[in-house]
């Protein structure tokens, strides 16, 4: 799982750690988790709003998982 959704670096902010938890649990309710770095920043900009709607994430979880994904892909 660490290859698909790498842990944030040691000392990372709590929202990033929480964002990874959301990624491997709530996002994976509908499909197997995809490697975060499989998609570009621009692709995630398109994917993420649909995913958030589909999984009915609250604002805190949505912000956390978005921050987590953005921390792993280059703009």
């Amino acid at each position: 799982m660490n290859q698909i959704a790498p842990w944030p670096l040691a000392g990372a902010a709590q929202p990033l750690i929480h964002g990874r938890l959301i990624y491997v649990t709530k996002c994976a309710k509908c499909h197997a988790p995809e490697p975060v770095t499989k998609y570009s920043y621009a692709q995630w900009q398109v994917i993420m709003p649909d995913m958030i709607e589909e999984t009915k994430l609250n604002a805190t979880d949505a912000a956390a998982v978005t921050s987590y994904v953005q921390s792993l892909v280059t703009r």
Partner: protein
Amino acid sequence: MKSYLPSSILAVTIAALTALPSTPSQANERRFAYSYETTTMPKGSLEFEPWFTYKHYDDKDRFEFRYELEYGVTDNFQLGAYLSDWRITDLDDGDTEAEWRTAGMEAIYSLSDPNKDWLGSALYGEVLIGPEKFALEGKLLLQKNFGPLALVYNAIVEAEWEGSNYDEKVGVWENTFGVSYQLNPKFTVGVEALHEVEFADWSEAGDHVFYAGPNLSYRTKGFYATVAGLVQASDVDGEPEAQVRLLMGFTF
């Protein structure tokens, strides 16, 4: 035993699925037609799930229909209402019987997650009632995901009271297995297996029936469809020789 594979149904279903439009998101999906997964619906999600099962017997063909509404009460707990189970049976002598069977409720509580935890697990309970059938069913659901690969096992115990006076008691012990591989976020393919044994009067074990076959699942935004075709690997008379199940889900 007459060999019969409903290949035309599978072909039409696959053609319909591959013709569906492509979008980047998914509904809450089921990758297996005969096994439940341990993940439940997101809190607040509502899904309409029609089922269609075709069973080919030695002396008849049966078409079973089920309409279900599922709702995510919390992220770990979902409730479902079976609005109607009914079936049409085509007998070899030319007669056709249509029969409304049951309505009911189900509940699933997810105990652990198949991605985050060592083993995903959930408990399932179901009550069905109809004019000639009352049934209670419990399941232990286990699942482990390894990236795109998902393995599931369901242990099922069912108690049924059938007949106009509910005086025919039957116990059922079932095991289902499934393996599914996610080709991409839209398609998964896999195999499923089913083992079943009935206990007349809850005491006398009948024959062990085994089925196995492939499955295919497609999902897109707000919709999924899963089809599986199973062939009986044992040789038990009176049980379906082959069956195909199509599940669809429309999420709101």
